[in-house]
């Protein structure tokens, strides 16, 4: 029986670019991490939500790489900070309803990305300024009597949907949003790819560029909003993993690495609390970004 399963598995991996040994090791490690987190800390619904969030994150990374040619993940680019500030302000000023927060965050992020295109370059400065602004905003809100507790702020940094009471429903929203983006990108793949090559190449599609800008901004914003509300700032290294491993690892292996990374960070959140875990994630993202810029970007500039 085991031999048969092994034979079937090896045959399924043949020709797909998937390394059967690494995939098994990653899957076993991920299984242990998910089981540990589910049993001792997060519970089943939250685990599912983290997985849905990472699926969105994986698509977000792919989207940034393929269509926006960006070399900054959502932490160094400042997109994550903008999204967190948006969620915090929506929580204080408008509503705590997670679905409404999701919709408004998508709208605000796509507007910001449409108006000021500062997220898709490798300049650390603009992202750093936004991240410092986030820190200052959070410190101010934490010390002001804003009606939002320290614990809630910490939870927003690691995914506001977990404390919304609708973790399972929001996981479904994340899956639906991911499927929608997959559908749109697969239907319009050549057009979006031409968009990534610049205006003169996109002109051959005969589509006005503003529609392409809108589609890319909206899809990117939907993916990022789902990521921020389900996993917060507990990711942020996926784009660099993608750049560094794309010649050697399959998409499945990279997805498993991203899932494993987040599960380890969730475990860290359980032991050390959300804020130290977020500090570590931000530091890891900046370290990966720096390594990428100095060791890899010159090869593909």
């Amino acid at each position, binding site marked *: 029986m085991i031999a048969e399963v092994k034979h079937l598995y090896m045959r399924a991996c043949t020709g797909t670019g998937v390394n059967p040994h690494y995939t098994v090791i990653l899957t076993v490690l991920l299984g242990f991490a998910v089981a540990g987190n589910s049993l001792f800390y997060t519970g089943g619904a939250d685990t599912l939500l983290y997985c849905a969030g990472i699926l969105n994150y994986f698509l977000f990374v792919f989207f940034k790489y393929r269509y926006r040619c960006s070399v900054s993940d959502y932490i160094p680019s400042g997109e994550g900070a903008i999204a967190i500030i948006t969620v915090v302000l929506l929580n204080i000023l408008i509503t705590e309803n997670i679905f409404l927060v999701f919709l408004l965050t998508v709208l605000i992020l796509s507007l910001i990305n449409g108006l000021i295109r500062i997220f898709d370059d490798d300049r650390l400065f603009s992202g750093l300024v936004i991240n410092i602004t986030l820190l200052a905003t959070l410190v101010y809100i934490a010390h002001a009597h804003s009606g939002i507790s320290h614990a809630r702020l910490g939870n927003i940094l690691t995914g506001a949907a977990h404390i919304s009471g609708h973790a399972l429903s929001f996981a479904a929203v994340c899956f639906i949003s991911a499927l929608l983006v997959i559908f749109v990108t697969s239907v319009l793949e*050549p057009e979006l790819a031409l968009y990534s090559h610049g205006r003169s190449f996109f002109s051959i*599609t*005969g589509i006005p560029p503003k529609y392409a800008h809108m589609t890319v901004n909206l899809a990117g914003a939907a993916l990022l909003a789902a990521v921020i509300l389900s996993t917060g700032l507990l990711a942020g290294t996926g784009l660099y993993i993608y750049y560094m491993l794309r010649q050697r690892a399959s998409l499945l292996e990279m997805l498993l690495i991203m899932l494993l990374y987040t599960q380890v960070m969730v475990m860290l959140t359980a032991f050390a609390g959300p804020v130290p875990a977020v500090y570590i994630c931000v530091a890891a993202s900046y370290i990966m970004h720096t390594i990428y810029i100095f060791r890899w970007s010159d*090869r593909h*500039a």
Partner: protein
Amino acid sequence: MLEIMNISLSRSGSTLLRNVCATFNDGEIIGIAGRPGAGKSLLLGIIAGLVKPGMGQVIINGNPMDKTAGRKRRTLVSLTGDAFPENRHDRVKDFLLLSRAPHRRIFRAFAENDLDTVDMYIELFNLSGYRDCILGDLPGSVLQRVVTAFGFIREAHLLLMDEPQKSLDIASVRMLCKIMSRYVINGKRIIAFCSNDLNFISQTADRILIMHGGSIVEDGGPEIISTELVSKYFNTDVFLSRNIYNGRPEIHFFPEN
């Protein structure tokens, strides 16, 4: 057949194109020459539908270009400019396949014919060794060849090229000349290109248009190239010889001393 009817364009008070009229016949290779600012690239942009003229219109096979739907127009006209692809992560073969996008029907994958066309031009442009390379890793001259191939792959009725020989080594220029001749050989397609290299134009084009101050001032076969013409419109003294194989004029400079 393409008809350019009384095209004029003014911007900020200065006239960039003035009553430009011309007819491009099927099977022709048309070279457009002129000093910088004469309006060559602008004319190509107007023909391609990327720039709106102030007056006049472009008619392709009896249909006004501005009345032709965007996607249909892209299957009729292809413009290769001087822009390079910005996304350097794409593989050469994937990038070239995108040129067939106007032929692809929505919700459908690229057809077998699209893939075969890409393969054919990869062979013709001698890019087989770079087929799976990513664009960011290509040397400049190879990238130029890829961009030029991108224009051909659409197999549009009218192929427009802006400085196609720029950045190409001598072997690639020779290859490009052959591919251009092959493109129009069935007598159903047209190539129009502009260049600052008069020798390239005289050796390649069946018909030459000289532009000056936004107008077409000379129109004829390669034999119109003369020392007087070069002196008049390019303000340079040269002498001519004839290519011993095709009899076309070749331009040479006088030695300094």
